[in-house]
């Protein structure tokens, strides 16, 4: 369009100059103006004007006889002056712009050339000294340039050998779609593409690599190929793998720690630990061995991988006769990478029978003592990392902690149970004491108020009977209070025993005065051999025990039968026995009768009832003098209660005076 306009203008001017007259000039003028208004094609118009004017002036100077022509030229000039000037100015500017542009372009070209020269050198240097494999390809992926590392990575000795090969051929098939997708994207979006893939060299060697790829463009910006840096990441992968397994082990530890704290039973915790060990360390065998100190062996307490029937029964020797024993001996992890080269200890039969070649054993050390050994083993030789050893030791420590916790919990629970039992007993005791106090008190208070009743006149005999009953009940009450107080004082450790050396015969005869009144309707037989060693005892307390036992015998055996007190030597003690001819004491009652307030059913008479403290006090009194008391384990009728007192010569002087416990 523009071109046409200036062409038309030029031809119009030509018409005018060839004598086209005013019409031609007018036409040229309009076209020129139009072209100028559009402001384009200035150079053309300016040069045309230049020609026109030159022609006009030539004609004017050459032929002045053409006044009309001169007139026409004047008009044209007047008309065209302004556009012409514009055109001229435009021309000048255009030239200046052109010059500037030209200079600029030249500069740019020179700069680029220089830069290209420099960067190409740099490029080569960079490529050669790069720690990474660098490969340049064309758009099809054929290698155009590469460094030594790249060639080596791809399985070639020299870079030249790799040139022309397709990089796709070295990508593991499973990774190809990803790598191709990455190239596609880089080509489309620009920037740098990244991909990790398995590179398979010409030699078949597989190397995990990370590739960073960008597009190479020519001066016009058209893509001409790719350049890529390929880095061997097998080391990193390895570390990642290690970190991952380390992290996993930490998680396992945390989980197990939580389980241990959650109060899961030990059996489950041990089983879970062993399962996790086998799974996490990928071993064939795992075991927890418990040290049995008195037998100097380690018992296979729990484990995995062992032949059936071994867990819970098989033992290994302590000391250097087993890996576990050696571990206890050294108190540090014992690592065996190849059993055939082992010379620190003799492997146990257990390890030999299972063809174990490698393993780690660590000590499980609870607060009080070494509990035992935790171990893992494999059938083939294997190297173990520090991390694996630490992991095993951490689990062993965790188990030890759990054992300790368990022990503490059990101790605490036992103590609590004891305290609760004690409380129950106290409450029961108080209920019984209350009852035992109220019963005689009822008679005392009742008969007293009966005597005082003003609506009835009691006979003298009746009054005497009531007062006797009051007296009887008051004595009973007094006796009961004495017993309870005695027991409390013994329990509180306030009971002092006056232990003296004396002959057994003397000890019994001194107390006969108290015993005789008790056995009015029975026959009391004393059988004390003369040749008995002296005992160390508190005469009064022994008398109290004998009275109580004889009293019981009287209560529980028919009138007219024999009650026998006998004594005989028994090691460093003298054993006393009180026997009767009553129904005897049943097996289940043998322990119970010494408990406070325990009362057996009396088949002989319901009248003679104690409160169930007599034997409890006897037990405490005998224990307080260093002896023991028990019901004879004999069958058939007749109760026999034995107690012992220490032989004086067998007791060291420093141990007296004895005190109740």
């Amino acid at each position, binding site marked *: 369009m523009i071109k046409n306009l200036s062409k038309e203008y030029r031809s119009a001017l030509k018409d005018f100059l060839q004598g086209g007259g005013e019409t031609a000039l007018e036409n040229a003028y309009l076209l020129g103006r139009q072209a100028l208004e559009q402001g384009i094609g200035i150079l053309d118009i300016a040069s045309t004007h230049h020609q026109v004017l030159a022609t006009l002036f030539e004609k004017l100077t050459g032929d002045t006889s053409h006044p009309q022509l001169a007139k026409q030229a004047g008009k044209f000039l007047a008309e065209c002056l302004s556009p012409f000037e514009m055109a001229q100015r435009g021309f000048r500017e255009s030239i200046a712009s052109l010059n500037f542009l030209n200079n600029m372009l030249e500069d740019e070209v020179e700069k680029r050339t220089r830069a290209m020269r420099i960067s190409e050198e740099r490029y080569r240097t960079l490529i050669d000294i790069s720690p990474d494999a660098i490969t340049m390809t064309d758009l099809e992926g054929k290698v155009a340039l590469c460094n030594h590392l790249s060639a080596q990575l791809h399985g070639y000795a020299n870079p030249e050998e790799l040139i022309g090969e397709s990089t796709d051929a070295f990508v593991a098939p499973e990774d190809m779609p990803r790598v191709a997708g990455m190239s596609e994207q880089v080509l489309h979006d620009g920037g740098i593409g990244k991909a990790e893939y398995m590179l398979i060299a010409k030699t078949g060697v597989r190397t995990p690599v990370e590739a960073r790829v960008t597009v190479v463009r020519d001066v016009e910006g058209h893509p001409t190929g790719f350049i890529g840096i390929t880095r061997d990441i097998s080391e990193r992968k390895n570390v990642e793998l290690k970190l991952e397994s380390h992290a996993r082990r930490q998680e396992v530890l945390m989980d197990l720690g939580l389980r241990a704290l959650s109060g899961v039973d030990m059996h489950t915790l041990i089983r879970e630990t062993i399962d996790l060990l086998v799974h996490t360390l990928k071993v064939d065998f795992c075991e927890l061995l418990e040290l049995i100190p008195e037998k100097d062996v380690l018992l296979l307490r729990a484990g995995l991988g062992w032949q059936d029937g071994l867990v819970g029964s098989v033992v290994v020797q302590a000391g250097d006769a087993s890996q576990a024993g050696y571990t206890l001996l050294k108190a540090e992890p014992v690592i065996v990478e190849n059993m055939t080269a082992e010379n620190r200890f003799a492997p146990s039969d257990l390890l030999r029978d299972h063809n174990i070649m490698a393993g780690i054993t660590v000590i499980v050390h609870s607060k009080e003592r070494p509990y035992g050994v935790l171990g893992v083993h494999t059938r083939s030789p294997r190297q173990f990392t520090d991390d694996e050893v630490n992991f095993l030791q951490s689990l062993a420590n965790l188990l030890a902690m759990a054992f300790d916790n368990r022990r503490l919990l059990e101790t605490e629970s036992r103590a609590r149970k004891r305290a609760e039992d004690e409380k129950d007993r106290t409450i029961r005791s108080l209920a019984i004491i209350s009852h035992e106090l*109220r019963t005689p008190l*009822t008679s*005392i208070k*009742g008969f007293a108020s009966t005597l005082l009743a003003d609506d009835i006149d009691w006979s003298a005999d009746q009054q005497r009977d009531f007062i006797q009953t009051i007296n009887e009940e008051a004595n009973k009450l007094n006796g009961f209070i004495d017993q309870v107080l005695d027991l409390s004082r013994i329990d509180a450790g306030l009971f002092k025993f006056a232990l003296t050396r004396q002959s057994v015969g003397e000890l019994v005869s001194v107390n006969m005065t108290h015993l005789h009144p008790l056995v009015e309707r029975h026959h009391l037989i004393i059988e004390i051999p003369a040749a008995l060693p002296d005992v160390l005892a508190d005469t009064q307390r022994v008398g109290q025990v004998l009275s109580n036992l004889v009293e019981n015998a009287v209560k529980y055996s028919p009138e007219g039968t024999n009650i026998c007190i006998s004594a005989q030597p028994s090691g460093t003690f003298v054993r006393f026995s009180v026997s009767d001819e009553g129904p005897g004491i049943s097996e289940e009652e043998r322990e119970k009768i010494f408990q406070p307030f325990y009362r057996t059913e009396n088949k002989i008479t319901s*009248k003679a009832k104690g409160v169930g403290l007599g034997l409890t006090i006897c037990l405490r009194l005998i224990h307080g003098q260093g002896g023991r008391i028990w019901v004879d384990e004999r069958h058939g009728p007749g109760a026999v209660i034995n107690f012992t007192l220490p032989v004086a010569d067998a007791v060291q002087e420093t141990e007296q005076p004895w005190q109740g416990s």
Partner: protein
Amino acid sequence: MARILIIEDDPNIRKLLGVNLRARGYTVIEAEDAHTGLARLRDSSPNIMLLDIKLPDMPGWEVLRIMTTDPTYRPVPVIVITASISSAHPDYMLTHSEYLRKIMKKPISIQELTEEVKEALN
């Protein structure tokens, strides 16, 4: 005159209750354990029963239960006399019956008892 059955294992307390009630004109039947007491309840047709709880063969509450549930017994008003009862005692809750007139705690007042017996018989 009314007949009173006393079931009480302590001989002196039995005697205490006996002399006081006899002196006031009642006929007193004594039993030293639950079984004897139940037998006397059947064969001596008392009008009222004084019942101890801590008996050698069974708890007094059991006597009360048997008397009120076994149709072969003719139930009579009962005054329980005990040294060891708490009102929270489960047995007490279970055996609480229309025949249980009063629970008296040892040591009891003889005057209170004779008044209670008089009232129960009216």
